[in-house]
């Protein structure tokens, strides 16, 4: 009783803080939280029929059947419920206002600058149990900019940020109004221009050096570029080119006011709108030194390039539409392919994406995973494709994606089996914070309340 009263007070306090979004409660994580009597689906191992997850300081500190709940822990008795790791959306532009910058080559951009914490999208993420979102520039680009890994709670981007994105967005499929010849020419130009930029910069720096020493230019430009290289410092290079150098694997150090910063190499999320883009993306990544950090974002009939995908053995992000339809031009017969099955059979690491928000069931990752099971993918692999896999693909696999001791406490409590369509998300814990409670979800309540219910309430 006492605990509950405290809860109510806290909740009231939270509601005051964020009056607009009832279900987004952001506060410092309670020091200890225990989820007890709950069926645990850790994804990284076999389910535990009834057990406890103990969270301390936002991290999972114990998981198991016989975990002793400390007296000072805030306990949630979740008997009959199922808890699974928070789901990971590997690639989405949602959370930003506009999917892409209108210019084709913008490696200097960062999705972190465009994320809007007040977007309803993040609230929707909570409702669906998606606790990690990799916000990335969309596919209508050539070199689109950097992504950011965020959690759907927080009042600022900084508060939301889980990890600075380590991936550049590239697209092999043509932008709107473009075609593949132009797309590839533009992409090649961007990298050719990088060479030229560095050379030109070196040449300029060498000339500047000579000017400082009040000497005449003594060598041909080719030699000047070589000599100028020594004069080059990281902060001479602008953001645009620095990110391309990072993509190519070069670690760039910038001397800032607060000391030198090392920019680590970038990976790339390369969108392939069609099978023909796949071998090209792989070849391009190899040519520019980011093959080891390549993630292929598949679309359209990309699965037809399964041979190339299998050979490359790079992780893939699957298209939103899991079923691809081919129409025979003579007979109009439709042949359907369930894409994840093709990918899974090839033994590739893959992440499922939620469908568009307009599609009621497909926007749930659990639904996408359930469909995979229906088409013959094992339950474990289907669950991994919405948790562990995407977490690993976006580089936060160490911290997220499963219920294991030491990992961040991103937990989703379902009313039943998560892959059962009738199950609903009841609670969401993000870094130990009780971030969502279905019973407090006003918007959902409004949606689910009928007129007669309201009048009944009035009478009371």
């Amino acid at each position, binding site marked *: 009783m006492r605990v509950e009263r405290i809860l109510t007070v806290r909740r009231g306090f939270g509601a005051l803080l964020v009056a607009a979004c009832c279900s987004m409660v952001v506060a410092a994580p309670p020091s200890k939280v225990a989820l007890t009597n709950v069926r645990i689906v850790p994804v990284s191992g076999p389910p535990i029929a009834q057990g406890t997850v103990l969270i301390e300081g936002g991290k999972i500190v114990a998981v198991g059947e016989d975990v002793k709940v400390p007296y000072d822990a805030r306990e949630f008795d979740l008997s009959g419920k199922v808890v699974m790791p928070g789901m990971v959306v590997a690639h989405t532009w949602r959370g930003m206002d506009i999917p892409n910058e209108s210019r084709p080559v913008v490696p200097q951009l960062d999705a972190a600058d465009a994320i809007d914490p007040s977007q309803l999208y993040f609230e929707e993420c909570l409702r669906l149990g998606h606790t990690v979102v990799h916000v990335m520039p969309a596919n209508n680009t050539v070199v689109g900019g950097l992504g950011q890994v965020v959690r759907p709670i927080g009042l600022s981007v900084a508060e939301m940020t889980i990890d600075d994105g380590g991936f550049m967005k590239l697209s092999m499929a043509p932008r709107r109004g473009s075609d593949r*010849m*132009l797309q*590839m020419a533009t992409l090649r130009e961007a990298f050719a*221009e990088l060479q030229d*930029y560095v050379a030109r910069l070196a040449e300029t720096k060498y000339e500047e050096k000579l000017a400082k020493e009040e000497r005449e230019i003594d060598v041909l430009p080719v030699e000047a570029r070589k000599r100028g290289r020594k004069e080059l410092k990281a902060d001479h290079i602008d953001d645009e080119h620095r990110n391309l150098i990072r993509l190519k694997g070069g670690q760039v150090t910038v001397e800032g006011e607060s000391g030198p910063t090392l920019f680590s190499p970038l990976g790339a999320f390369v969108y392939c709108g069609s099978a023909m883009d796949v071998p090209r993306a792989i070849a391009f990544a190899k040519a520019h030194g980011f093959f080891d950090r390549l993630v292929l974002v598949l679309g359209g009939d990309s699965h037809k*390039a399964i041979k190339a995908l299998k050979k490359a053995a790079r992780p893939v992000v699957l298209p939103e539409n899991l079923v691809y339809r081919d129409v*025979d031009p003579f*007979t109009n017969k439709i042949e359907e392919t369930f894409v994840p099955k093709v990918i899974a059979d090839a033994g590739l690491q893959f992440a499922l994406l939620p469908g568009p928000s307009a599609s009621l069931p497909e926007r749930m990752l659990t639904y996408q995973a359930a469909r995979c099971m229906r088409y013959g993918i094992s339950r474990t692999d289907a669950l991994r494709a919405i948790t562990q896999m995407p977490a690993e693909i976006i580089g936060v696999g160490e911290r997220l994606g499963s219920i294991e001791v030491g990992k961040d406490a991103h937990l989703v409590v379902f009313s039943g089996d998560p892959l059962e369509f009738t199950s609903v998300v009841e609670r969401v814990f993000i870094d130990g914070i009780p971030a969502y409670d279905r019973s407090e979800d006003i918007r959902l309540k409004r949606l689910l309340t009928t007129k007669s219910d309201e009048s009944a309430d009035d009478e009371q």
Partner: protein
Amino acid sequence: MLRDRDTWIGGRAWRATAMALLLAAMTAGVQAGESYVVRAKAIYPVRKGMRADRAFMPGVMLVRDGKIAAIGTDIDVPAGIATIDLRDAVLCPGFVSAATSLIRPHAGEHSISGAYQAIDAFDGYDEHPLQLATGLTTVHLDPGGHRLVSGRGAVVKLAGDHAARTLKAGADLAINFGTYDPPPVVDIPFYASSDVGIEPATLQGPDSRMGQIFAIEELIARGDALIQRLGDPRRRRFEHHDRAFVQAWRAGLRLRLQVRRAADIASAIDFVRRHERDAYFVGLGEADDVLPALVRSGLPLVVRIEDPYRFPAWNLGSNPEVYEPDRSVAATVARGSELPIALAGLEGDAGADLKMIAALAMRGGMSEAQALASITRIPAEILGVADRVGSLEAGKDADFLVLSGPPLKISSHVLRAYVGGREVFKAPGTDALVVKASTLWVGDGTVLNDGALLIEDGRIQAIGHRVPTPPFARVIDAGAGSFVTPGFIDAHSHLGLSGDNSAAGPEVEIDKTVAVAGREFLRVAREGITTVMLSAYRAANNGARVAAVKTYGSGRDDLVLRSTAGLKFRMGNDPSLAVKTIETALEAGKKYVKKWEKYEEELKKWQEAQAAGKQTVVQKEEEQVVEKAKEDPITGIWEFKVSGGPLPEEVSGTVTLKLTGSKIEGRLTIPIAPDEEVVLSGTLEGDQVVLEVEQETPFGNPQIRATLDREDHMAGIVALGDRFQVDFEATRTNKDPVEFKVGRRKRRGKDGRPLPPKVDQALEPYRAWIAGRIPAVIEVFSAAQASSVMEFVLDREKLPLVLLNASNLADIGDAKLKPRKEQIGVILPERLERRREGRPYSQAADLARKGVPVAFQSNAEDGGRNLPLMALFAVYRGMGGDNALRALTIDAARMYKIDDRVGSLEVGKDADVLIHSGHPFDSGSRVERVIVNGQEVPRDAE
């Protein structure tokens, strides 16, 4: 007889097996790395030094690991190798197009660029079925004809493994003379600010013919500066597209010069000569104006032929400057020079069909040989891929087309396409079949020379000298000397009865014995007998049914043409009695028919009433039928007395009885209620009479049980259940046949609709016969029998008649026979020759001469396969060949009134077609192919 029905599943399975074998052969051969042999009617290799319209006939090609290992008319074939026997099909190299618009021009704005690569736009995973269907297997991809220098072209195959498709990724550098006014280039800096201003768009050249050469020359001249990036590093823009052009130019790529106007052709020739580059021309609408210069240049040409059939609405109006395509250009250049000439479609026309284009070029005067080479070998040579594709030669890729006819014949279609030895396209399923032959014996009295048949959906759809060839239709060209006839009919067969010679009555539906076409069917079908008139070996006295059955098909629905096509009678030796049996049976049939007629009449009335909106009142309408009885121990009027038991006094009355067989019907009246007639019914067994009185009492109907103790007298009891019984005695006072007015309630449906009479299977065939829909097939031996049968059936009953056997028919004399020749048909005895009056006599020849329609019978099961030989023998013994053919086809069909479906090659009839190597009655002629319901009967698989 050993029957193997159990293991033999039958027709559908058969066909499925045959198809599976065929497909297995086809697909087994197309596994990569495997070897197989293709045999075809003709193979056009289109190799250098051999006229392109010359073919290996027949052709054999050995394919190994996706390459052609050997090709010719007769090559050494390794033992045990898979064979694809394409029989009627024709092979030629896959078509090569040196100018397609498979990919759209690039969307970049730069006027001169080497950065655009056509290979980037190629979808190497697309199966390109629409292009393969036109025969295209290798294409050049053009970055576009919309910019002065649009980029690098590529040469690719349209099918096969993704990695193996690219023949040349950077094949050439596309320069398009006569392309002016490119869009300005807008380069908005990012981020534009007060420091970094947005520059006005950069205008690009060329705007004129002068400008185009200058623009290219300028870039070539700037080469080093561009590549080495000389100049002030702070101001210098990164000119990616210009640099890429210079790189491509320096890489020594071939120049693909797309030109249309004569002036551009001239300056292009000049340009190439100046730079001493390897180049080829594309387009050349006005080539004939600068022909000498072109010839001097020695450069290969890809001539674009405009295909106005797809865009007929190009109105030229009165503008004198308008450009009018001339399809004779290719032919003119070809005649005037030794230049390699390839043919291609119009720029921007993604649907260009090379065969149609070749046809247009031929209309413009190009030879067929040149036209075929111009869409296969020559473009491959021009594109520099002739070592791989373009002709069928040992060592080259096995890229070939399977066509339904010669490659450039407008009616032939691509049935299959192979790339790298693998089947990559298969024509969508169609059962359309065209049969071409030098003679078609139509069956309606006409003979068509050099004609063709179109078969679709199992029916003949067209016949004539030229018939439409639907897309992907299979074509059988039977060749010189071939002779096509309708399928043969065995007019009396027992196929499939497996020796069951029990007698069958008219109620036996003989077609029900047909379930699947087993091996014996196949044996008969292969010899050309496509329809058999099936009946039991022996007919019952009241006849047996004859069914018309096809010999090849996938099930009963396919096989049974008509379940009742005749009513067969077998006569005893006494002619008068024989007719009597048929007469009696026919009487019963007539009665049955009357019932139906009545019903139909009523139904019509009812329908009319319904139509008029009248509500039919369901009345207890009764019909009066008068039935007579004959004299016998029971029939007559009996006076009876009942006494004893509970009766207070003796009751007497009269009862009228009638005996039919052992059944008794009667009416009973008693004087105290003379108006009330009570119905009696019962039986007579020996002398025991049992009658039931149809008057209900609480104890059931009273029953009379009496014994005929003496003539006209019976005595016994009347029992009322087991409660009461009284004595009964009756004496016959009148032996006259009695008539009852029998009141029968008419059967009506709920809405007053009259209900049909009960179907009597035994009488159904009679109904058909009386209606004239089927003939009676009456087996007669003597002339006297024949005569009496004809008198009865033809003269008295005026019904259709076929005489079976009738060996001695000629004996009745011409005077009697000739007037009837239009009305009868004669099925010749299976023994065609015998002695008559001591001399060999051929009834077939005799009757045919007299104009009596005859037909052949086997009177056997699969012995029917010898029917054509019987006909051959009949011809040998003096029957006219045409008569014998008629006897096997249309005459037999007419006798049985199935000539609406079979018997001749007419539009709408079943496609039962025989292809003979010569006239069927030439000594050396064979039945080469048999088609039943549009399906070819497999020859060799058993």
